[in-house]
């Protein structure tokens, strides 16, 4: 047979041979996993639990421009800081009174992201039965870790929105329920019962001081106690306890004390140096933290890499920072003198042109101002020509509107905005620390009239910073306590929540101007100091709770009821 007649036969038979693969379409994705191989294996189960810890990052956004890591974002919603740049519109709308359900800045995302994280935890709970071949001890530990994370997520929802719908399982596409809001009490009960369950089972390591290094950063029994204490403190506070039911304070007090006792019994104690507390990872005071990436990476910043840019956001112009947040004159004035006097006290010796002298050490440990020594030189906010003013060498956009810069959390040796190596700031984001537990407990004691016990714990916190003990009682003690809390917990995502929780936010903040310091330097070198008013801030009554996103209300077909006033 001639070659040219063979060719077509060969071709056709070759095609018939290769062309009839029956299972051609039976392929599975090679770059993903499915249920069957996630929940059945100890290693993949652990990896799934890791993912649940991302629930603590629900404020982090993809849009890093001017954004702040974690929850420092609530600081400029309070009287602590003024935010120069906007963050998804959050500050503008909060400040000018325009916060509404269809325009709520990053709270929109906070709601969705938090519930998405809840869903991830629920999915674990729904599927953990598949882990038949995994060590039951491990399964128990993982379950409690996830239970703790979920409880924290509900606490987070509670403090911003009040009573929210409690969802504990993952529905299916054709069988889902649009449930109404639960009451704040129900949410509190749910959180507490979940935490009590963990406490009863006692399967988590006790604290990050005693656990193995590899476990550090994960849920501990100390953290569980701390969350229970804080939740019950909120539940007893005026916002959630308008009738001031004393039994709620009693329950809170018990939990707060239990948390302190548990922490102290398991290696926690106050860290000696307030100035280094926030830049010393895994110190004895940290009960529960999230940590940030500070190594180098090829892929850069962002949500995926857990990179914090604190040093970039907060540093002053001459230090290559953006000065996203500017501490207010109000905040600066909250720091007492070394003798423990308010600066408004005529006997305090306070003078505006030496405002930095003779102050609570925590002031200079937390805030940078004109004349502060930092990174090898002095901060200069004076005009004309100060290197950190709007006339500085880099000038213009990244000066401080108030004349102050954040120092707390910053590490002097971190290069802000290390663009090329994508290094982040290594500081931990502290979610629970012992001093907060002391103050929480003190608050319950004040409310229950046990002033002495309250003073004891407040003074422990003050003593660490060499501040004299206080002897106030009654209303004066309450006032003193609240200022102490403001100073000690500056920028730790408490002030905004405390003001609302105490239901005094409107009276403290509404319709008041942000105040700033303006420093002029004459040709002779003499400086003059002036307090000036900046933007007037609104904090109407309805801001006591954040509005639920309008989309959610609409999508629920009004099953969700909006918070009052919106």
């Amino acid at each position: 047979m001639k070659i040219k007649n063979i060719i077509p036969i060969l071709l056709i038979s070759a095609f018939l041979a290769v062309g009839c693969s029956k299972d051609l379409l039976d392929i599975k994705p090679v770059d993903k996993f499915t249920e069957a191989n996630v929940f059945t294996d100890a290693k993949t189960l652990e990896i799934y639990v890791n993912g649940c810890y991302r629930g603590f990052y629900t404020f982090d956004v993809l849009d890093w421009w001017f954004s702040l890591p974690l929850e420092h974002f609530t600081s400029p919603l309070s009287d602590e800081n003024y935010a120069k740049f906007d963050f998804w519109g959050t500050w503008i709308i909060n400040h000018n009174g325009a916060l509404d359900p269809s325009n709520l800045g990053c709270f929109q995302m906070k709601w969705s992201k938090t519930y998405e994280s809840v869903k991830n935890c629920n999915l674990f709970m729904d599927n953990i039965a598949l882990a038949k071949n995994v060590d039951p001890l491990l399964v128990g530990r993982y379950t409690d870790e996830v239970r703790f994370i979920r409880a924290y997520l509900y606490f987070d929802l509670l403090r911003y929105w009040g009573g929210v719908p409690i969802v504990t399982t993952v529905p299916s596409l054709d069988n889902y329920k649009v449930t109404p809001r639960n009451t704040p009490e129900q949410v509190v009960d749910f959180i507490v019962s979940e935490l009590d369950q963990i406490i009863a089972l006692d399967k988590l390591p006790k604290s990050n001081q005693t656990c193995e290094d590899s476990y550090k950063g994960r849920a501990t029994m100390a953290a569980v106690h701390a969350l229970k204490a804080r939740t019950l403190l909120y539940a007893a506070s005026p916002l959630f306890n308008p009738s001031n039911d004393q039994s709620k304070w009693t329950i809170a007090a018990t939990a707060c004390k239990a948390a302190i006792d548990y922490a102290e019994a398991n290696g926690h104690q106050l860290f000696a140096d307030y100035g280094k507390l926030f830049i010393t990872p895994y110190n004895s005071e940290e009960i529960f933290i999230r940590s940030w990436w500070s190594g180098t990476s090829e892929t850069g910043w962002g949500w995926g890499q857990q990179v914090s840019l604190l040093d970039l956001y907060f540093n002053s112009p001459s230090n290559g920072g953006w000065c996203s947040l500017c501490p207010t004159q109000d905040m600066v004035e909250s720091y007492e003198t070394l003798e423990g006097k308010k600066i408004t006290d005529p006997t305090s010796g306070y003078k505006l042109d030496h405002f930095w002298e003779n102050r609570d050490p925590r002031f200079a440990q937390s805030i940078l101002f004109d004349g502060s020594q930092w990174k090898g030189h002095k901060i200069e906010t004076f005009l004309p020509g100060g290197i950190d003013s709007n006339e500085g060498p880099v000038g213009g956009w990244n000066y401080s509107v108030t004349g102050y810069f954040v120092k707390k959390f910053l590490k002097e040796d971190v290069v802000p905005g290390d663009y090329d190596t994508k290094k982040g700031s290594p500081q931990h984001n502290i979610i629970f620390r012992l001093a907060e537990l002391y103050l929480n407990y003190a608050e319950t004691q004040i409310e229950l009239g046990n002033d002495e016990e309250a003073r004891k714990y407040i003074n422990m916190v003050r003593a660490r910073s060499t501040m004299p003990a206080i002897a106030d009682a009654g209303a004066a003690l309450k006032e003193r306590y609240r200022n102490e809390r403001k100073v000690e917990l500056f920028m730790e995502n408490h002030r905004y929540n405390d003001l609302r929780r105490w239901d005094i936010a409107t009276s403290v903040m509404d319709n008041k101007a942000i105040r700033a310091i303006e420093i002029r330097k004459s040709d002779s070198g003499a400086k003059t100091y002036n307090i000036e008013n900046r933007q007037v801030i609104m904090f109407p009554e309805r801001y006591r709770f954040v509005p639920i996103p309008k989309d959610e209300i609409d999508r629920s077909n009004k099953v969700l009821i909006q918070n009052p006033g919106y």
Partner: protein
Amino acid sequence: MKKNKPFGELFCHSLKKTLLTMRIAVVLMILGILQAHANDAYSQKTRLSVNFSQTQLVKVLDQIESESEFFFLYNEKLLDTERKVSITEKDQLISVILDDLFASTDIRYSIVDRKIILAPAYLSEAAQQQNKVTGTVTIKNGEPLPGVNVVVTGTTQGTLTDVAGKYSIEVPQGSKSLRFSFVGMEPQEISIGTLTQINVTMAESAIGLEEIVVIGYGTRKKETLTGSISKVEGTEMKMNPSPNLSSSLGGKVPGIVSINYSGQPGEDGNKILIRGLGTLGDNSPLIIVDGIDVGTIDRLDPNDIESLSVLKDASAAIYGSKAANGVIIVTTKRGSKGKAIIEYGYNYGLGQPTVKPQIANGYEYNKYVNAYYVANNESGKQMSDADLEKIKTGSDPDNYFANTDWWSTVVRDYTPIQRHTASIRGGTDELKYYASAGYLDQRSVFKNGADGFKQINYRANLDWQLSKSIKLGINLSGRFDDKTQPNTPMSDTWWMAQSINPRYPAYFSNGLPTDVYADGWNPVMMVSDAGGITEDKSNSYQSMMTFEIKLPWVKGLSVDGWYSMDKGQGNSRKQQYPWTVYGRKDANGNYPTGISNLLAQISLFESANWNSSETINSKLNYVKKFGKHDLNIFVAYEQNKYESKWISGYRNDMISTNKDAQLFMGAQLGQVANGSAYKMNRQNYFSRLSYNYSGKYYLDATFRRDGSPIFPAGKRFGNFPSISASWRISEESFLKNSAPYINNLKLRASWGQLGNDRVAEYQYLTAYNYVDSQVLMGGANNLLPAFYPGVNANPNITWEVAENKNVGIDAGLWDRLIEVEFDLFSNSRKNILIQRNASIPDYVGLKLPEENLGKMRNSGFEILLTHNKQIGDFKYSISGNYSYNNNEVIYIDETPNVLEWQKRTGKPFGAELYYQTNGLYSPADIADAQVPKYGGAEAGDIKVVDYNKDGVINGDDRVRMDKSLDVPRVMYGFNLKGSYKGFDLNIVFQGAEKVYRYLTTDDIGIRGNFLKEYYTNYWTESNQSARWPKANPNTFGSTNNNDFFVLPAGYLRLSFMELGYNIPKSIAKIVMLDNVRFYFSGSNLFLIYNKLKYYDPEMADSRGNYYPKQRILNFGVNVSF
């Protein structure tokens, strides 16, 4: 020519004959001319032997050709090559053999050197007659055209031109004109008057009625098309020497929406949409090159393109899945019978941005910033008048009182682009070849810019007619891209180039670069390789073997098919290191080094990827003609397997910044390795039945069954039928007789269902994405991996179905003086995969998969009008195209009790909620409590309309936008073509209307510079009728979508113009060339109007932070020999 010789020998054999110049005008005709120095010596001394018995004439001629250097030229229509002959001669002169061969026929031969021309006696005789009108018919470059029909208009009296293109014809008294016609050429009619000699130059018809159009798994004559298919000739694609092919389509084809998104070398592809937006998801068309889905036409060498078809309606259904957004089919050039033609082209272009945004200068910007300080209660921070004056006069730039035009500091005036192309094509009856190579070098638009793009490509297409019934083909092509770019993202660079405060100098007067924002960034460094570069190399190789076999058993039955294996491989290498910039001179007179210098880290990231795609196609065809019935059927099977894989490695603390530094030179601590893979298979069955009756009624029906593995078993296959028909009214005798001026009149209609599975894959599974380095726990920098649950599984997910309807009319009048194509279409989609995210709250805990829920309709029309005319040597055509499309959501998930004006249903897809605005608040508005305001509103802020008139500005006042952002609803174009003797001119205008752009202004004010326009007319107490809001960052516009900054972006641009000149053949010959053409051309030359004013209307970014579209001026030359 012998069939059993090895390839190489055959090839050489053909080359031997390249001394003669050859032109192939159409498949049926071979043309030739005599060389001036021809002589008969060869034919006088060469002796040949032949011995055939009852053999086809063609075989005898072949045998002679293969054994000698003789070459036969003849018109196949005029010579019966199938005639059986018997001949036996030994060592005879060619003339003896030829005498014998044609003894009893009317064929005459003439021998000119090695060339033997065979023609019927009447042609030869015609040359000897001396009649009233004589002349020569040539084609454009002066070569004679034999076989042209020359007819006295209105009579049957006619003749054909001879081999020298000469004719001579008896013209009766009173005859008005002569008509010259030739297949594939523009027919011409010339008045006789008193002329006795009429010389005619014929031109190839641009849009001839005999035009062959590729329709997907086949070709059609244009006149018999039943669907809405536009064709662009390769020559037209070739003309536009823009470095990216996708940018050459705009304005040329009705129904194509082409939007440029970047001018960055190597990234300058246009987004192409066929008939606008059809679905809620992926709208990109399917791109098929020589049968294979290639994803993009961006990097094809335009010189390789034979033709390009755009399937706009149900005719695309033959491609089934993925075809719902239309199909673009590119066919590359192949060899054709004849002597080798070698072509070479060189093109040198200069590019520059089309529009330079007019930015406020240093004085203006800082005055504006002063106003901002006042608005923000910080009047003490204003820049003093003395300092503003310094900026104006430029007296103190080093102290940051410069007045830098950042754009001009980094952007070059002109950027060179070069392209070389070379090709060779030719062949014999048995073997036809086309081979080409191209080289493209595109440089950065920046001064000292590190970005650039180089491309080398080759292609070889071989066709081998093994026997009368077997044809084989091999297509090979490859491409090597090399793209470099600086390590800072381009969008940042463009942001900096427009937004930096002009008060900063780019360099201090001593030449040191400035640390502008104290973060190390300075555009002059960012565009350069100062911080290292990223180099992406990608290589791809395509190989395809094709076969066509006429089956011996049944007449009309054949099989064809192909096997293709495409491989791609890419490398990316990103080397990063610090650069040094400097701060302002300090008190000691030193310039402190900027922050980037503090970073000692040098890092290297490398990645490699591979992909392979294997396709098998086989097709069984049956063709049958009986009486006036014409039937053409095929059934086919096709399958594709695709795989890709990538790996990457990273190390820092590299010991070297050397370009050749390798990963091992970095630190092991912190090193990263990564990798993943992807798989996709396809399985398709399809068939087509084509039928026509008497050349008047045409019917096409296709059926396709496609399998896609991304759907669950049982839902994987989709069936996609289509039917289309046309009626050629002009072929009806009633019209032929009554309206002879109608050359073509056709009605078309089509209907079809097409599939789309270009959606997120495997949504029927709850997939868990594994992400490494996600959670930090257990000590410093201990990054742990995590799983993220994907969507809730949707076990019912399946194909999205498009139903496309189209009616059209084609008409050609008065010998193509006017041609019209008109199409009306309505495409509806159902089962569109969308999420139920409007009716299911987030807190419920579903991560919504896509479900087959959405419905939308996209309808519109297209019209193409062409006018062709020739006046003497001047020939021109004008065509205009206009297309309109509008899409509307028919069904989409809506929020319960949605406000009427916020409904998505009935609005264009993707329409968002916008506040309506009405200028700016006046002080009176602010004072008037009756005027609704948002919180914090002040005089000079954007005034928002209280749409629902409830006295409050809130989310309920947002209105679903009805304007089409970014994607124009109207695209139109004009094409002007003209030629006169050696000159040719081609002009393309492209325009768009009913399109809007949303300009983002969030950085206006303190952080970034802005358009001069904002400065010249912003609100102040003394300018209350201003166009733009006051200087204050807290404007409503920065936190809410509002229509204040939604601006019309219609435009008309001269998108392409070319003037070419073919130097006369006689001159070309002096340098031994056949054809030489010089041309000047330009693309995106200028905007005739631009409603957007401030930026290029096609800009990719909402405030111009993108690599701008390029205007390119070209000079080029093409030669062939």
